[in-house]
């Protein structure tokens, strides 16, 4: 008997919560971005676990799409971060209030 799926789900929930805490606690924009990636990984783990528990390959296919979208998101997000840093604003999220009306 292999490890029960609920253990994986609990691990994924813990990882997701750590990502939430990271996004809320850290003020460095790049580290916040990394925490978002961590949350995406937690959801991926949930998908794969349910794919195994329910015997359904669609969960793994969905993880494949999540990976592609995450790659595109990272490219655009880091491009935006680079453009913000080019304007010599600070490294923390509190310094980014140029959109304030």
């Amino acid at each position, binding site marked *: *008997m*292999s*490890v*029960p799926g*609920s*253990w*994986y789900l609990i*691990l994924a*929930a*813990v*990882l*997701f*919560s*750590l*990502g*939430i*805490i*990271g996004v*809320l*606690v*850290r003020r*460095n924009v*790049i*580290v916040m*971005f*990394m*925490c978002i*990636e*961590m949350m995406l*990984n937690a959801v*991926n*783990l949930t998908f*794969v676990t349910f*794919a*195994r528990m*329910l*015997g*359904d*390959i*669609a969960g*793994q*296919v969905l993880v*494949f*799409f999540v*990976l*592609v*979208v*995450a*790659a*595109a*998101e*990272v*490219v655009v997000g*880091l*491009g935006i971060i*680079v*453009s913000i*840093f080019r304007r010599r604003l600070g*490294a*923390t999220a509190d310094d980014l209030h140029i959109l304030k009306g």
Partner: protein
Amino acid sequence: MEPTFLLAAIAKPDLITFIAAALIVIGGAFGVITSRNPVHSALSLVLTMFGIAVLFIEQDAQFLAAVQVIVYAGAIVVLFLFVIMLLGVDRREVFGRESLRAQRPLAAAAGVIALGEVLLLARTTWATGAHAVNGPVGNSYDNVQRIAAEVFSTYLLPFEATAVLLVIAVLAAVYLARRLVTANAEEENSEEVEGKAVER
């Protein structure tokens, strides 16, 4: 209904692998959150990604494990490191000065509440538990074939949409980079002109 999960009933290699990978994942996540240097956070993120890949392999998702290592650890984290190092944003975060008072404990409390909510919902309500019609996961020999068959038949339209999305992302990245280069060049030119005017 709830089966009794005895530790002795679980195969030893599976159990050891799961515990080791879970420790790696959680340790890496803590490293991402607590490292003051963003480079250390990125390296901890690699640790988490590898742990997730190990868990994928243990759950018969060999293809996704390979993609996880290649795309996440090989591409995305390297991209993070490039941005950190090229832009010189690796200066340490000032932890003492905060514009929001008591932000850190409130954030930790919010995270714990979110975890509790997820676990509570998981205990009380499951969606259906019914098996879907897309076919089984397969074993280590035909996992890739099954994923490929699904991607190119049932999920063909989303697959094409991701191709469009990737093209759009590449165009956006190029546009963001190019426009700012020209803007900086114009600023520098104008500064040079002003400097010469002052010199004259």
